[in-house]
């Protein structure tokens, strides 16, 4: 990693905790060259971009794969209970995969803080899940497993339709709120000895509803969705959910990420329009990329919507080290 990327690496961690994405103070000479070249050939490039756009088919490759994984994972929980096939017993907060403990990191943290006593099974389950998501990309938990992510994605479609009809506008909220809520719920758990976040976690509520049958707690999930449809796009995932931050921190060192290639990008910004966390894609803004190839930061959920959307293939899935090996 060169000095520019190193600076960006730490910058992106700060952005995950809620700082606004901003212009980089220094850009590598190679990238600067491309930026200048792009400015010079602006018109041609734009025409090229329009053409590419027209020819581009709407693809949903990664979205479909992701939905399939998400639904399969959640159904595996459900069927394990319903048909007693005992493959994945429990709920998303804690479960056993063929007898092996898996425990959600945020729930585990809450219990540890509240109960102040850690048993072996808790350590095993938490450790396993930690390693799993360290390898698989941290917040990829959000987009590839979390059931709330899926229903929020559908609610987002309604929201975007209403925005197009000019019936609602997206009201953005300060992203530092998520860090604040993480701290508040951690402190509450430790101080009151009660895992209060678990009572309102839509991930837990939905997961349990899918497995053990619907409950009135779903009304809270519904309230969140209504808020997101009519007021603020993807508000829970973007501004409030401490689970996302926990997994985001785990994903800082994850080898699985989205890679951006400056060379082929037309800077149309379509990727930022579909992104749940557009601040991680600030680098695609004209003149912002600090290097020719840039790994996207830890707040990225690796959902692949940008990969599907990009007409030029400038955004791709990348496994650090693997591409070098091949």
């Amino acid at each position: 990693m060169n000095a520019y990327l190193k600076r960006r690496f730490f910058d992106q961690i700060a952005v995950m905790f809620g700082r606004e994405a901003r212009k980089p103070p220094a850009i590598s000479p190679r990238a600067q060259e491309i930026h200048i070249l792009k400015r010079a050939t602006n018109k041609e490039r734009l025409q090229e971009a329009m053409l590419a756009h027209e020819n581009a088919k709407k693809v949903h490759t990664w979205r479909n794969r992701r939905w399939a994984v998400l639904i399969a994972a959640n159904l595996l929980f459900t069927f394990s209970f319903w048909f007693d096939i005992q493959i994945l017993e429990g709920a998303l907060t804690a479960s056993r995969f063929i007898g092996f403990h898996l425990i959600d990191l945020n729930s585990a943290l809450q219990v540890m803080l509240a109960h102040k006593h850690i048993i072996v099974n808790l350590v095993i389950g938490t450790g396993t899940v930690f390693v799993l998501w360290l390898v698989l990309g941290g917040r990829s938990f959000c987009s590839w497993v979390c059931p709330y992510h899926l229903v929020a994605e559908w609610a987002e479609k309604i929201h975007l339709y209403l925005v197009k009809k000019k019936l609602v506008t997206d009201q953005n909220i300060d992203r530092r709120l998520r860090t604040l809520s993480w701290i508040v719920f951690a402190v509450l758990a430790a101080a009151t000895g009660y895992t209060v976040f678990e009572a309102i976690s839509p991930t837990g509520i939905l997961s349990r509803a899918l497995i053990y049958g619907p409950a009135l707690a779903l009304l809270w999930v519904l309230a969140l969705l209504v808020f997101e449809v009519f007021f603020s796009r993807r508000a829970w995932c973007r501004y409030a959910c401490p689970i996302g931050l926990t997994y985001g921190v785990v994903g800082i060192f994850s080898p699985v990420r989205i890679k951006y290639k400056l060379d082929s990008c037309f800077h149309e910004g379509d990727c930022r329009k579909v992104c749940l966390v557009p601040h991680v894609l600030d680098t695609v803004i004209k003149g912002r990329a600090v290097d020719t190839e840039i790994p996207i930061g830890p707040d990225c959920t690796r959902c692949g919507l940008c990969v599907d959307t990009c007409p030029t293939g400038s955004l791709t899935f990348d496994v650090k080290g693997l591409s070098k090996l091949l």
Partner: protein
Amino acid sequence: MSESKPPIAAQPPPSRERLQQARRRWLRTVLLTGGVMGAALSGFLPLVYARTKRLRPPGALDEKDFLASCIKCGQCVQVCPVQAIKLADLVDGIGVGVPYIDAREQACDFSCDAVQCILACPTGALVYKKPAFLGVRKGASLASAPILKAKEKDPEPTLNLKERIGVARLTRPEACLAIQGKGFKGQVRGASFKGRLRYMEVDRWKPIGISEHPYDVAECDLCVRECPVKGAISIETVFAPDGTKRKSPVVHEPCVGCGVCEMICPVEPTCIVIDAREVWNT
């Protein structure tokens, strides 16, 4: 928020616009914070309601510790062969997703033989033995390991359970069939009752519906007959206030509070109930 601008300000300085945007965003942030925190407050209700005691699964820590350590995954629900354990909902006021037992509907009859729910618990909210730093309430611990009637002939007849989850109590002696000297014939809770019980003479490993197992007893002793724990309850001859002798179910120290007596009692409403979280007072 939209009434603020008079028409004179045709060219508002951009800085002011920005300022207002920032202020509005701040307000929205406060709104969402308030909403989330407000909802979170409702999560504390179980602590307030902790006084209304609910029967928790066997091996549950004391209520406050239990609420702290339960991760709300429902693995205890999944392993229970009679599905006695349910998860609480928003309105139950005892913790969203926290397990409890409604003994009248479906009691724990220990037909798993080994307290599977404790084995399944990943966080130690249900334990065989409490960690040293947690105290045991006086009268909560069982004098000796409870002997399961169903496996009395096994080499290891006891349950690995140190504390009781409650104590049975005869709440309506005036309605008790045993005290009245009456018998019982038929399905104890009606044909539509869903509760299940293990009947050793039917199948050791497969609990069946109580409605599939009608009774015909000359003198009702169902609470004693179906109690899974040895020596926890018996029919004794007692003296009534007027000096006459009569029979009555009497609860003894080995009672773990499983709730089978509450489920099986054929009288509506039940004559015998589990006082959840109650300790044994001599």
